[in-house]
């Protein structure tokens, strides 16, 4: 039994959510998916550790979830869309989660993104044919 290697695994700083990751983090993502239901969110909040046990998380995953270690949760295979159901209601945006991978704050992350705006209109002017306000 072996996980086949893929060329996307060589892309730096990127984790492609494939069968290997999805398989190993299935219970974790299933727990987050359950948060679509308000009653499940309430049940989790009442006793997070018990809720993790109910979904069959490993001890390591349980610790990450109970401690709200969002970066750790992502590193252990949570899909970002499912993690969002856990993080956003706790005041951690998807951008904050992305920033954590680089050890910067969400505000610093957003500043870096805004740099993409610089010179954009001029660039599109050169390309030609773009609506430009």
């Amino acid at each position, binding site marked *: 039994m072996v996980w086949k290697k*893929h*060329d*996307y695994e060589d*892309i*730096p*700083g*990127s*984790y*492609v*959510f*494939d*069968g290997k990751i*999805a398989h190993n983090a*299935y219970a974790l*993502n*299933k727990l*987050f*998916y359950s*948060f*679509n*239901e*308000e009653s499940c*969110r309430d049940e989790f909040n009442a006793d997070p550790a018990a809720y993790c046990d109910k979904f069959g998380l490993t001890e390591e995953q349980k610790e990450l979830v109970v401690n709200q270690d969002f970066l750790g949760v*992502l590193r252990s295979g949570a*899909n*970002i*869309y*499912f993690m*969002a*159901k856990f993080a*956003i*209601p706790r005041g951690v945006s*998807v*951008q904050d*989660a*992305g*920033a954590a*991978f*680089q050890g910067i704050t969400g505000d610093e*992350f957003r500043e*870096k*993104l*805004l740099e*993409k*705006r610089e010179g*954009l209109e001029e*660039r*599109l002017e050169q*390309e030609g*044919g*773009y*609506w430009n*306000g």
Partner: protein
Amino acid sequence: MAKIIGGITTSHIPAVGNAISDGLTQEHYWKRFFDGYQPVHEWLEEKKPDLIIVVYNDHGLNFFLDKVPTFAIGCADAYQNADEGWGLKPTAPFDGDAEFSWHVAESLINQEFDMCTCQEMLVDHGFVNPMRVLFGDHEVWPIKAIPLAVNTVQHPLPSARRCYKLGQALKVAIESYPEDMKVAIAGTGGMSHQLQGERAGMINVDYDLETIESIINDPDSFADQSTSHIIEQAGTEGIETIMWMVMRGALGEKVTCLHKHYHAPISNTGAGVLLLESDA
């Protein structure tokens, strides 16, 4: 007979919906992005399509990772938006057209695209935000809408080529429907972005602009790109742009671009708006 009157591309990210809900569309951060939709709004007002097919990916509302269809189509009379678990306010439901959907599904399956047919389908922000940005908010939506979901979440994904071919088959399916009906198709998502990993926050403006040109004038060159190549250039979530190829395939070989608009960043993404009509 039903006729495809045009194709549109649009972002579908949650931040777009939030900006609409919070009345921020004319704030500095958002103004240039939203203003770029004006020509599309005018076109929709003038052409008045009867139905729009929204090609999008579900983000864990309707489909969990236990069963992930590569391609799924709504075959219901109505589609509900619902709680995604993090505070988005559900919109009014969308009217579908079950007879049309079942015809399209049957035609696609006969053309060897083995669609997952969904008689119940919750539509998430990936579907809802394109509708809101194109049509505004409504208690009763002014157009019938069909969700067509592409798996861009759990790999292996369909290739860009496969999405393009699905679009070509979709054209045959739509144009063989006996009722007179004007159909528009929206390819949603993208453009370059990556949400997690040390490379999170990357936006590749050069690649996005190349992609826009390819999709308009040379879709085969985008279709030739592998999933790994697109991810390398556009980010792990930037792969969503393959969904534009479904729209593009449905328009036929040559198109006229009536409008193109690019903006970056909106939230984590580069955002492209295209309005295309078929030359055929």
